[in-house]
């Protein structure tokens, strides 16, 4: 389990990292937390000739408030999200989800930027970023650009990120205060990717749902924003009929792969259950 040989680079700034990416081209890969890339390298499924470690770039660390938004810089780890007061108070769904990712050792290393940029359909944060309508801030040779999380994912490991670009930060609009939230993840064991998972953020007034956004993980080759499923519960008291309508609308857009986590029909079935559970738990938390 020894990776192929490579040259290691540790730039001190985003500009230096971009310069290295431009010079070294296709043979270079940026390294964030490394807990997707290094296992792939050990299996020789990836053999980059150059690794550009982003850990030396302090400008890629931290969680800050910018007006109504929360900006999480790309190299912020899941463990740091768990310890962030800003996340706990404004985006508690990120905390709940971080706790369901992998295991403690991996959360000390794994970063939000790596999780969303990798394009692995099993990763949990992309669906969350879609349901929250986050923007990804990207820097490249031609400067900065922003891509909405809802437009970023094109297929398994295919994203809007172009060669030579680095995803530097995630900008998330803060949900309304008093919102309810939940992330429900069915997995076979600690550390596994989801068999099916659903995230919900909703607001309620007088027992009636006033807004609802739903995201789905590992139920297609990209994360899914289940727009119709969310709309199906708005204006209802989240009675059984509304829950079923939402689950059915979510199931209609799922196209999971059959794998060790179960056949397609099973994964869609439990995907619908995750949607219903997340809706109920989010409603119970909505003020």
């Amino acid at each position, binding site marked *: *389990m*020894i*990776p*192929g*040989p*490579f*040259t*290691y680079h*540790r730039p001190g700034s985003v500009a230096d990292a971009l310069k290295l990416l431009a010079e070294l081209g296709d043979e270079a890969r940026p390294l964030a937390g*490394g*807990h997707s890339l*290094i*296992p792939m*390298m*050990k299996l020789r499924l990836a*053999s980059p*000739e150059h*690794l550009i*470690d982003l*850990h030396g770039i302090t400008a890629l660390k931290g969680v800050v408030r910018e007006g109504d938004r929360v900006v999480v810089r790309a190299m912020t780890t899941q*463990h740091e999200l768990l310890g962030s007061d800003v996340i706990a108070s404004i985006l508690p769904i990120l905390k709940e989800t971080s706790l369901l990712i*992998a*295991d*403690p*050792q*991996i959360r*000390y*290393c794994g970063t939000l930027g790596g999780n969303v940029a990798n394009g692995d359909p099993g990763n949990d944060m992309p669906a969350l970023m879609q349901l929250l309508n986050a923007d990804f801030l990207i820097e490249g040779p031609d400067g900065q650009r922003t891509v909405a999380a809802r437009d970023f994912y094109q297929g398994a490991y295919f994203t809007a990120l172009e060669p030579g670009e680095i995803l530097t930060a995630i900008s998330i609009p803060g949900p309304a205060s008093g919102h309810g939230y939940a992330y429900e993840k069915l997995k076979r064991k*600690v*550390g596994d990717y989801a068999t099916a998972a659903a995230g919900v953020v909703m607001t309620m007034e007088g027992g009636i749902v006033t807004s609802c956004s739903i995201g789905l993980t590992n139920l297609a080759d990209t994360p899914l924003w289940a727009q119709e499923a969310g709309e199906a519960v708005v204006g209802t008291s989240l009675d059984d009929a509304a829950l079923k309508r939402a689950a059915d609308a979510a199931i209609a857009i799922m196209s999971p792969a059959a794998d060790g986590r179960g056949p397609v029909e099973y994964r869609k079935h439990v995907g619908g259950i995750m949607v219903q559970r997340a809706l109920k738990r989010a409603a119970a938390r909505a003020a």
Partner: protein
Amino acid sequence: MATQAKKTQVSMKVNGVEVEGLVEPRTLLVHFIRENLQLTGTHIGCETTHCGACTVDLDGRSVKSCTVFAVQADGSEIITIEGIANADGTLSALQEGFRMMHGLQCGFCTPGMITRAHRLLQENPNPSEEEIRFGIAGNLCRCTGYQNIVKAIQYAAAKINGTEYQEAAE
């Protein structure tokens, strides 16, 4: 295939001692620790980031040293199982807990369990049983069923906090 990458010099503080070595960039931290430093207490279990037997403490974080390159740890401070005992050589509270509570059978997972529990107790000196189980979820043990590992960590927490360890009624 690229030609053999040049070796680079790394230095770090391991168990309070400054060490250095010449490594290929692809050298995993666990191999540097075991082969260059000859500290073989850190075990290689699954080599696939699952089992946690290779867990070490790196700048105050528990990491699986099979999934970190030695070059990434350049300039860091590391604690391995060899650095867990008290300065006078006596067993630390955690080591004593694993002994008293029979927290091991074959012992293969124990170095990783203890280094992980060391960081867990630094972050949460008085964890509940549930917090202990959640906190060691990245460390696999195929012998004990975890029951006595949890008790060992509870024992250590009580000892560090100066309270009496009360074994929960079965």
